[in-house]
């Protein structure tokens, strides 16, 4: 395959299809509607299932149904739609069926706006619905990375029979850049043995999240927690740049993380020893690596397009070992390299003093 100029929303939609997506259900919402539009044509062309639902509530429950039937299925949305899906997300995790959801975050709260934001971090990583659970949350920083993460998302969802959220932001969805799509993969020929497909020649399958006896429900929860522990042990992903000699560590993900690579380059030009840790999994969070780095740097700067949500995870892990400063923009404003660089400079000077 060759590189081509691709818009993020179309790139992840086409990538999902090429990774064997069998059924897409969705509801239009800016800034990710191009994904639904793209799949409305492509899925039918490929003989797969596409349906525009009457709401995000219906869309996620259609996805839930298709997942119970054992097919590779997903939806995509943005903040307000993601809120409506929270009910279904909880049932999906409680029923242990594999589902992928793309949330192209936009400015909130409320209707907010349609500009890029990272304000759904808490909602996705900490409290994606009622009950005790975390989804796996992947955070791409480029069009190429969201393409690659679609394949990873399906693999993780099916390996662990759980919910995987690809946490983009309006910037990832709307920008065009050069990227390479995966080759077309065939859809799976068989359904998993747990799927509901009609009890032909086998005992019937029942998929439910209802456990009336508290002992049974606690047993389910222990199983889910054990699964989360396996995910934490095996699936943490992050990218780091120039951390070995760093005095100051930038911690940022997604679009903010990408901006921080420019900040890092500028800072290095000025002779400032700056490194970057960019989590690619927001849950599980790269706790161990961050804790290690907190032993060797002198300060940290967390950059987010929010009021400081991942910041709380950084503070929890670092436990006061080094000073942590936060640079955040809200309301759909993308922070500029210069304004972050000002913080970097003053933080390095303070640490040196």
């Amino acid at each position, binding site marked *: 395959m060759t590189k081509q100029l691709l818009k993020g929303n179309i790139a992840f939609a086409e990538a999902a299809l090429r990774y064997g997506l069998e059924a897409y259900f969705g509801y239009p919402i800016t800034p990710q509607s191009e994904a639904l539009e793209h799949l409305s044509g492509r899925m039918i062309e490929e003989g797969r299932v596409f349906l525009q639902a009457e709401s995000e509530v219906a869309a996620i429950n259609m996805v*839930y149904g298709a997942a119970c039937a054992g097919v590779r299925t997903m939806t995509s949305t943005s903040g307000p739609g993601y809120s409506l899906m929270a009910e279904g997300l909880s049932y999906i995790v409680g029923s242990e069926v594999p589902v992928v959801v793309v949330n192209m975050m936009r400015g909130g709260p409320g209707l907010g706006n349609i500009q890029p934001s990272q304000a759904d971090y808490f909602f996705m990583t900490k409290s994606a619905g009622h009950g005790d659970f975390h989804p796996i949350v992947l955070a791409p920083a480029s069009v190429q990375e969201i393409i690659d993460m679609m394949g990873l998302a399906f693999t993780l969802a099916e390996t662990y029979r759980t919910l995987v959220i690809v946490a983009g932001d309006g910037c990832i969805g709307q920008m065009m850049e050069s990227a390479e799509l995966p080759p077309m993969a065939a859809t799976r020929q068989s359904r998993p043995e747990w799927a509901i*497909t009609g009890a032909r020649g086998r005992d019937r399958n029942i998929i439910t999240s209802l456990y009336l006896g508290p002992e049974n429900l606690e047993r389910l929860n222990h199983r889910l927690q054990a699964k989360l522990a396996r995910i934490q042990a095996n699936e943490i992903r992050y990218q780091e740049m120039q951390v070995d000699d760093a005095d100051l560590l930038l911690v940022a993900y997604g679009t903010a993380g990408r901006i921080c690579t420019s900040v890092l380059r500028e800072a290095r030009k000025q002779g400032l020893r700056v490194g970057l840790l960019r989590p690619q999994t927001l849950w599980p969070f790269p706790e161990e690596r961050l804790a290690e780095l907190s032993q060797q740097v002198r300060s940290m700067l967390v950059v987010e397009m929010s009021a400081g949500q991942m910041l709380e995870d950084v503070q929890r892990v670092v436990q006061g070992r080094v000073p942590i400063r936060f640079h955040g923009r809200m309301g759909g404003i993308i922070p500029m390299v210069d304004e972050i660089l000002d913080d970097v400079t003053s933080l390095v000077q303070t640490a040196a003093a």
Partner: protein
Amino acid sequence: MAEKTTVAAATIPEIYEPVYTYPDSLTEVSTHYCPGCVHGIVHRLVAEVIDELGIREDTIGVAPVGCAVLAYNYLDVDFVEAAHGRAPAMATGIKRVNPDKVVFTYQGDGDLAAIGTAEIIHAANRGELLTTVFINNAIYGMTGGQMAPTTLSGMVTTSTPTGRDCLLAGYPVRMSEILAQTAGAVYVARESALDIAGIRRTKQAIKRAFLAQIHGLGFACVEVLATCPTNWNLEPWSALEWAKENMGAFFPLQTFKMTDEVKALGTR
């Protein structure tokens, strides 16, 4: 599937032919339903229809939230348990990826006529190849007898303690009449499980609704008027009488829509 050992087979001499046994598609489990509740009757009708159509191994049920939340314990087919009101959306997802299977939802009035109104109307309007059995007993059973969207005017419930005042609480909703307006519905009927004749008609209607799906005609829904002796504070027999006297006037037993194709299917 486990071998069926019916009570009849166990205790009645072999010279007698059993004429009333458990359908294959019904598990031999005592239900959790209250005395006098008709859920058990309607479950049996669904099971008999599945047996008669020979589709037990090709059928997928979608259970609601409400008293029938445990329907999968009794109907011996592949089953999923949906979120409250979302059964038609979940069933849509299942059917679209299993077009050769028979998918049905079994929903109560709170599930279908309140929280799931959008899902049922749009599933019907899209003409999803689904069958819906809709139990209307004019009250929320599982949560303890609160007002349902179908609660009759003046009816006392735990959330309308002085009787439903429609000016305050809104009016009872007639879902079958609404669903019959949708382009995608091919069969919409209201029957009752309040007496033998009604139960027989209900079974024919459920069978027709399954056949409409099997023949790829469109969405089909059978509403079944039912009782809730526990939350109506009536003995089982009185509840049946009360329902016949009061519910039928507002919820007429009628076939609201039946396309010619569905009519041509018959129910045999």
